[in-house]
């Protein structure tokens, strides 16, 4: 009563609703709301930022698998139509100026955008042009063959100038071998082929009944520094009904193919004495007719297009007798006869044009069709890529059409990433990773298999080392060890986890690898000597008088074993030279290489196994230890009360109950081993080979990223494939960890109630 009264009395003085307090409360409430919102926004954005990693990796990878597109950009009547149809079409680098060679031998330059003629260059000679050949798109060299048996080499070139700050491209025609035609044959040339090199140019010509070959050698006069040309002509064995001829890039071989697909290969190395080297048939079906035969970028693969719609790739492969033989590699197929074939100038890609006017773009390495689109209804005859392969010219009865091509990553396909691919110059299909080379016409080899294999190999050897040590150690620490010792041992082993891997890698590469190489015998004998030695010591210890044994109580055995193990290890080291001397002729390394025939690298999988095992032990150890330690005491005590020994309780009761936890420990350890970078980078030779040999190195996905990402060009296929590798690593570890974590949570819940 009194209390109420007094509060009543004081009420007016304690007014909680004064304007100031109200305002204060409002501010507090506002602050509270603001804080709540701020934390919600901040917190969720941090979590989103972290999850962004996954999406960003995907965003970089996605373009790899998107298909190409072709968009019509311009159509116009054939520029300078009066000069006849085109024999050859091309554009310069910027796709601004186009060029066509007409059937009467003129060269017409036109604007790609609207078809207006920029320049028209008449053929130098008045004789009739009866044959035409293109050296290659990149050399911009073409040859005309005439009815009088002569040939003229012409080069089209583009001068770039910047009058008043704007780019201007001026096309010019040059005659690098002089304005006088070269004598090739004494007959009207019907088919011509040409190959230019740094010190000679070769031309082969076929007439109605005869064929001939000419070599123009270039020699630089030392005094005047002028190039002097000398010609040599020989006759060739005649082949009838020739559809196509090709000279190899080094001018050593001539391939002559007939319409029905009979291919003759001539050896030109002994130019005075040209011999038939090989003859074969390009088609199985005798009704198939050859349409065209041309080199892919790099001049090692010949692409053969035929009337049945096949385009096949052939290149020289060394057989068992060490002879090079032109071999069928792979083909792609259109349902209807091919009309023309166009080669990309910077990649191993090509486009086919078939009778329906349908254009398909392929990549040879990945055998991937990136696009297939009908571009013309009017008897399309010719197609040609622009040098950057971002434009396509097509000629049909209506005139010329220019298309914009968007085709960024044709060399990547699921099969080229994970399957065996037969690369140019290889004897057979292989898994190979080789992302760059010194030359431009190199075929990039993007098989992720050797890297994935290397990753798993490294992880496997690491787990082989870590799992037994970590799990056995954890069993002892959690179950048998004296609590006082456990409190000291646990932090020591967990300190291992904090060791930077760069230090482990450095020790592995610079200390352990040479050490191992010198003490191979000791290393292998340790695996036998240590367990046997420990058991022998343990048995002897159990035979000792009791009062001596009681000096070291149960649960302190590791302390007792430390000197024993150090002694045994020292013994192995000391014995090592003697073992080597008596069993391996003093040099075990030489014995492995010579007698067993196994390749031995100093920085090998064994070193990685040790070093990475060391890095993984603490992870597995602490999770396993946790799992075993949290097995309810009631279970073990029940088992012991029923008369089981400690070890029986361990194997029959504790381990089965803790096994999901141990499983998750191994998974998490595995995840760590798979993603480890520095140790592998430093302790192996980083060669991407696929060999399970323990004495050879490997290259892992992670190490590959560290080596190649800084050097790869942004947005290139290589760059995106590296992101794909990162994504694979990300997903792999994420999935493995999630499984492990779920198992562990489940386990915790299960025993939380016990």
């Amino acid at each position: 009563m009194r209390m109420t009264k007094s509060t009543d009395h004081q009420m007016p003085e304690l007014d909680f609703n004064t304007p100031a307090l109200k305002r204060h409360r409002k501010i507090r409430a506002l602050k509270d709301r603001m804080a709540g919102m701020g934390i919600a926004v901040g917190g969720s954005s941090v979590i989103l930022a972290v999850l962004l990693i996954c999406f960003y990796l995907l965003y970089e990878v996605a373009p790899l698998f998107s298909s190409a597109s072709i968009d019509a950009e311009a159509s116009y009547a054939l520029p300078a139509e009066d000069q006849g149809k085109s024999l050859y079409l091309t554009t310069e680098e910027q796709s601004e100026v186009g060029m066509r060679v007409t059937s009467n031998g003129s060269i017409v330059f036109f604007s790609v955008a609207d078809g207006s003629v920029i320049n028209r260059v008449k053929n130098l000679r008045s004789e009739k042009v009866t044959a035409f050949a293109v050296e290659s798109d990149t050399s911009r060299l073409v040859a005309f063959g005439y009815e009088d048996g002569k040939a003229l080499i012409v080069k089209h070139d583009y001068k770039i100038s910047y009058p008043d700050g704007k780019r201007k491209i001026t096309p010019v025609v040059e005659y690098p071998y002089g304005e006088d035609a070269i004598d090739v044959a004494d007959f009207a040339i019907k088919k011509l082929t040409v190959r230019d090199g740094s010190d000679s140019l070769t031309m082969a010509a076929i007439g109605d009944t005869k064929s001939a070959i000419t070599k123009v050698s270039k020699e630089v006069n030392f005094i005047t520094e002028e190039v002097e040309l000398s010609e040599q002509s020989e006759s060739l064995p005649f082949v009838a009904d020739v559809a196509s001829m090709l000279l190899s890039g080094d001018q050593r071989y001539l391939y002559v193919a007939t319409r029905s697909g009979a291919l003759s290969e001539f050896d030109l190395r002994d130019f005075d004495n040209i011999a038939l080297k090989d003859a074969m048939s390009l088609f199985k079906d005798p009704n198939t007719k050859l349409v065209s035969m041309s080199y892919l970028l790099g001049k090692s693969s010949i692409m053969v297009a035929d009337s049945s719609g096949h385009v096949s790739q052939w290149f020289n492969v060394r057989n068992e007798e060490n002879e090079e033989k032109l071999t069928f590699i792979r083909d792609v197929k259109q349902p209807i006869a091919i009309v023309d074939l166009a080669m990309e100038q910077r990649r191993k890609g090509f486009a086919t044009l078939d009778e329906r006017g349908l254009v398909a773009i392929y990549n040879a390495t990945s055998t991937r069709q990136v696009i297939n689109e009908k571009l013309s209804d009017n008897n399309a005859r010719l197609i040609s890529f622009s040098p950057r392969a971002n434009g396509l010219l097509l000629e049909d009865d209506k005139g010329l059409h220019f298309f914009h091509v968007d085709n960024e990553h044709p060399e990547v396909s699921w099969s080229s990433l994970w399957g065996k691919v037969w690369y140019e110059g290889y004897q057979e299909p292989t898994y190979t990773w080789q992302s760059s080379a010194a030359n431009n016409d190199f075929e990039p080899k993007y098989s992720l298999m050797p890297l994935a294999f290397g990753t798993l190999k490294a992880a496997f050897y690491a787990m082989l080392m870590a799992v037994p040590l970590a799990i056995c150690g954890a069993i002892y620490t959690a179950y048998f060890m004296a609590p006082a010792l456990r409190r000291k041992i646990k932090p020591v082993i967990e300190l291992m986890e904090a060791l930077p891997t760069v230090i482990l890698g450095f020790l592995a590469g610079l200390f352990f690898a040479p050490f191992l190489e010198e003490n191979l015998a000791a290393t292998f004998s340790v695996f036998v000597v240590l367990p046997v030695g420990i058991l022998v010591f343990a048995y002897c210890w159990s035979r000792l008088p009791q009062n001596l044994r009681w000096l070291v109580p149960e649960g302190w055995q590791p302390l007792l074993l430390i000197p024993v193990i150090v002694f045994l290890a020292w013994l192995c080291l000391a014995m090592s030279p003697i073992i080597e001397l008596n069993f391996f002729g003093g040099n075990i390394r030489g014995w492995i290489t010579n007698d067993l025939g196994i390749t031995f690298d100093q920085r090998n999988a064994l070193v990685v196994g040790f070093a990475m095992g060391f890095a993984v032990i603490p992870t597995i150890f602490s999770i396993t230890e946790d799992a075993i330690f949290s097995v309810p005491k009631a279970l073990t005590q029940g088992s012991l009360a029923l008369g089981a020994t400690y070890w029986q309780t361990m194997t029959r009761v504790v381990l089965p109950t803790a096994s999901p936890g141990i499983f998750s420990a191994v998974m998490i350890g595995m995840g760590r081993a798979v993603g480890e970078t520095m140790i592998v980078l430093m302790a192996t030779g980083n060669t991407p080979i696929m060999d399970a040999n323990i004495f050879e190195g490997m290259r892992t996905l992670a190490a590959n990223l560290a080596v190649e990402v800084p050097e790869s060009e942004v947005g290139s296929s290589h760059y995106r494939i590296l992101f794909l590798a990162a994504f694979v690593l990300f997903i792999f570890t994420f999935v493995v960890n999630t499984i492990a974590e779920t198992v562990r949570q489940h386990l915790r819940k299960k025993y939380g109630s016990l």
Partner: protein
Amino acid sequence: MKMKKKSVSEWVKAGDPWVWLNAGAVAISVIMVVGLLLLIAVRGLGHFWPADVVESHYALPGESEYNIVAERVESVEVPAAQLREAGIDIPDNHQLMQRTLMKTGNRDVYGSDFRWVIDEYLTETKRPEMLFTAERREWGNLYGYLKAVKEDGKVASETSDITPTESALATWAVFEKSIARAATIFDEIHEIEKTDIGKINYALERIRLKQRRLELEGKLTPAAEADLAVERSQYDEEYKGLQQSLINLYSQINRDTFVVQVMDGTEHEMPVAKIVHAYRANAMNVGQKMSFYFTKLWEFLSDEPREANTEGGVFPAIFGTVMMVLLMTVLVTPFGVVAAVYLREYAAQGWVTRVIRIAVNNLAGVPSIVYGVFGLGFFIYFLGSGIDQAFFPEALPSPTFGTGGLMWASITLALLTVPVVIVATEEGLSRIPRNVREGSLALGATKAETLWRVVLPMASPAIMTGVILAVARAAGEVAPLMLVGVVKLAPSLPLDGNYPYIHLDQKFMHLGFHIYDVGFQSPNVEAARPLVYATAFLLVLVIALLNLSAVTIRNHLREKYKSLEM
């Protein structure tokens, strides 16, 4: 006999062998950890001890005898067969031979500074007192006898003795004085080149960028151009003055030369300016060696690297590591804590938060190189080049933030370690008893006030643990840094006296990368190895200390809540 056999099988049946093997696994693990730490410590710390220099005669069978002056590095036993295969004619009665790696130094004279010798054929080994070791700014160590010291080409002091006679010691004293003099001048030169001229170059570069910026914005009026020209000419003037004093200093530093007799008896004249330290290890007593040891240790911690990082100190690497880790901490602490608070205190607890929790937990297990790739792609190529276009167009095409640097490295590592902080903070928050929170709310505090005044202070040790663990992880991580801004040699520190003082866009050096680079990319790995061990020891020490403090704080925290849980 029978009795004993039975007890063996009993012993096996009871499972004792398995228990012992498990104990063995623990023992092996402990030996490995301790052994590794000892190895690093011994090799790393041993590097600074002034090693004795021996002189001996060495002759392989059938080859002529020569003199060898060197430090012993390490010895191994090798089977004689291996040596015979290498073409050394070794008598048949030998099976094992002791082989020693000798550091002969004088790379400029002999071409290589290490050679293997077979101990058996070393004779008349002695440790002459007058034999001296000189650490040089280039070409590695020099070993030999001092013959003369010259000033301006004139002999200041000379001796013909290689024993500690009066004349030899007098020449040595002159030599030491000359080295000290050269070192002082060298410091002056260094100061001018690095600090003063560096500052001028930096200012000139800023003027150039300013001009370019005005030009891009179309505001480059003749008046502005004249202003810039005036500014520039001031710096040019200053630069000329400095250059004059540099020329003077250079002529002074090159005044003295000395003549040294090396192991093959030839004499060589070299400039004193090239020498960092010279000492006669064989004449030093333990006290002198100790003091020398600590001088060297201090030099290692405080000096810049020399000779492609294989000699000298690691100060820029320590500095870079610390800067990067500090920046990372500044970023990771608030964000990590906010995310944890949101997850634990604000978000509705359901399957979504559970999934997020597992995801965050697992992100800690994603390989660090993946974070590096992400950092390079997203931060540097995507954000960085965007920033360059928007804010630093005057510097293009050379990138400012569109290339690896301190800021991107810190952010990448912050992303890498944020799960650690989130997990630790959440654990701390979950340990705070519910009644503490409810008490605060019952007294009328708002949720935010409870959080700020009650919950966070109580969780602060957990947050600290998380941050320390994050720092320890970040300090040891190298792989992602290789992609986002670490370099083997940074020309200047990311923090200096030039405006804006902290250069977030600059590349930096890092202890971990230093180990990788010197150990694996340097041309003379053998010579660099001791320094790598020393660097590794330093890194281990820092990380072990950080981890130990995290453990201590965690234990302290547990003690604290024991009383609350009553």
